[in-house]
């Protein structure tokens, strides 16, 4: 703060401008969340009032949250979300780490072509594949099960890419030393590479959990049984059938759904940044 920043300190107007831009951008992203939290504490009458205040005039939080938790099986939805996210993440790491190791450290014919295909996979939006995946799920007979929610995400091109980039920064000599020490290639992946790439693994975990916890599109296609629905789909069903225009409990449910992610991210923030900038500093 003191001596280290003095070398490239901006002039006061530039500093003010920079902070203004940063604050405005930050506010743009934060306001919907704050509004959501604020609405979840207000009674119905206050939600549609023309004037806006963050803090409710009449505290209605207990009613909204009770309704959110009792009128629909929100805990069940969140349990589903947890099961699906953990399964997806586990299988993704299981698949991505060996793939990334092969692409980063092994020499074989067609490696660059394969890596090119991974990049193509990275470019394709998931929605493009939804119809073929739906048909595949139907053929396999796994629609409307947990498996249907998990199988499209088993291979993550992003995970392979991120791990590969991180593995490439690990010196070859470490791999050589491990081979001389008697580790098999699979053992090198799990005992050496993955522990050394822990920041990348954590960063990837956050990405994966956030995107699949929040995923609405594929669960909407894959499951119809309410007892299998992950949180966003559940909230949607909740809105349609139960709440109508009752936004208070809806916002309370949304807040509850977002909360675990928020806590997880804040807890892992340090590693997250390190994982994404990893390799820049050895």
């Amino acid at each position, binding site marked *: 703060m003191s001596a280290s920043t003095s070398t490239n300190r901006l002039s006061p107007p530039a500093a003010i401008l920079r902070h203004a831009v940063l604050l405005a951008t930050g506010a743009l992203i934060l306001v919907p969340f704050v509004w959501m939290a604020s609405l979840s504490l207000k009674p119905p009458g206050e939600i549609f009032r023309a004037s806006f205040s963050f803090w409710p005039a009449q505290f209605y939080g207990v009613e909204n949250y009770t309704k959110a938790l009792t009128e629909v099986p929100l805990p069940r939805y969140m349990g589903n979300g947890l099961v699906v996210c953990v399964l997806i993440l586990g299988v993704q790491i299981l698949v991505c780490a060996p793939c990334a190791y092969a692409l980063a450290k092994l020499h074989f014919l067609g490696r660059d072509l394969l890596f090119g295909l991974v990049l193509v996979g990275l470019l394709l939006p998931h929605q493009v594949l939804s119809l073929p995946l739906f048909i595949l799920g139907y053929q396999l007979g796994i629609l409307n099960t947990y498996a249907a929610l998990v199988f499209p995400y088993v291979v993550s091109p992003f995970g392979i890419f991120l791990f590969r980039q991180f593995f490439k920064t690990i010196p070859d000599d470490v791999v*050589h030393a491990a081979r001389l020490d*008697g580790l098999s290639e699979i053992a090198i992946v799990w005992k050496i590479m993955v522990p050394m790439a822990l920041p990348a693994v954590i960063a990837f975990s956050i990405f994966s959990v956030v995107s699949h916890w929040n995923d609405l599109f594929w669960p909407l296609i894959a499951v119809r049984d309410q007892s299998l629905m992950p949180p966003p789909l559940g909230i949607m069903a909740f809105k349609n059938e139960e709440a109508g225009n009752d936004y208070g409990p809806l916002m309370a449910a949304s807040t509850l759904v977002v909360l675990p992610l928020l806590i997880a991210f804040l807890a892992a923030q340090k590693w997250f940044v390190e994982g994404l900038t990893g390799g820049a500093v050895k």
Partner: protein
Amino acid sequence: MGSAIFHGDVKVTAMASVLIDSIRKNYGTASVLRGVSLSIADGEFLTLLGPSGCGKSTLLRILAGLDVQDSGSLLIGGRAVDGLRPKRRGVAMVFQSYALYPHMTVASNVALPLRMRRLSVFQRFPLLGRLLPATARIAAEIDVEVTRTAKSLGIGHLLARKPGQLSGGQRQRVAVGRAMVRHPAVFLMDEPLSNLDAKLRVQMRAEIKELHQRLGGTFVYVTHDQAEAMTLSDRVAVMLDGELLQVAPPQDIYADPDDRRVAEFIGSPKINMLEGVVRERGLIDVAGATITIEADARAGAHLTLGIRPEAFHLADHGGQGILTGFVRMIEHMGSDLFVHLDLAGIDHPLIARLLAERAPHIAPGQTLHVGVRPDRVLLFARDGRRLRRQAESGRASVTPIRESA
């Protein structure tokens, strides 16, 4: 820290000779190794010496099984190891970057090779492996050996630390410990000292020599540092452009090189190379002087004379066999002086190493006469091949490295 760092009774059990037979290796169109053959005796300390990019590290990696040769074969302890995985070859390696596992403690780093060899897949399984009957006993044995090895290297107190908390020298010891804990038949060392500062390098050099004497294993040591090669080795193999130029004991490499490139690579300051012409049998014209040397060459033949800086001695006046030049610069090295001389007809200065006490009042710009003993002159043909005189053939002349004229 001192010379008593390596103690204890860690012994190498298996010993092995190494036979390298016409190994070739290409990377794309670049030929990195062009048919290297070398026989290393059981318990020998052999150094592969050469400038960077000469293929010495590649050869070491092929020996370790980390890289595969295009042709040629390898025998370790009389056993062909060509198709074998690194762990089956009975070799251990110390890397220039140490290549320690940063997420493991020193103890785990050193223990890993033993765990991989002695524990089964199931016994190594996280948590559950500990419940298997023999696991605890084997793990305890490994602990004992790791502790013993660490103590013999003076790193016993660091076992709980991670590599990131250690100094360069300590990491180096851990890397050595990880290599020696499983008693390999052959130690491979790839420039293990080049990441250390100068003072520590000299100390670790002595310790590696001691380690070799104590363990008695076969050591193959790669370096570009001639001081390391000269001080450590039983024999030095000088490599250049993927070929072995000469394999000989250090003193022979220095005093009796086979090739001009070997003579130029070894020795600091560099050997003086002077172009000469044979006037008649026994007389060679060089740099405006005539020196009496028996050369196995016709009159009129062009030769190169290689003269080590310390082969010169101060002469009072010019004459037969005396070179005369102007002093361009003097470097004081304490006991010695490096005198740079400009000679007529030679574009780079000649460097003579003279004893300081015998040459007290040399000043730049002055004219200086230096003589050279004919038996200290190395003759090279135009293609770089060494021309030996009759008396020299048979590798008889062994001159101490440190002798000054």
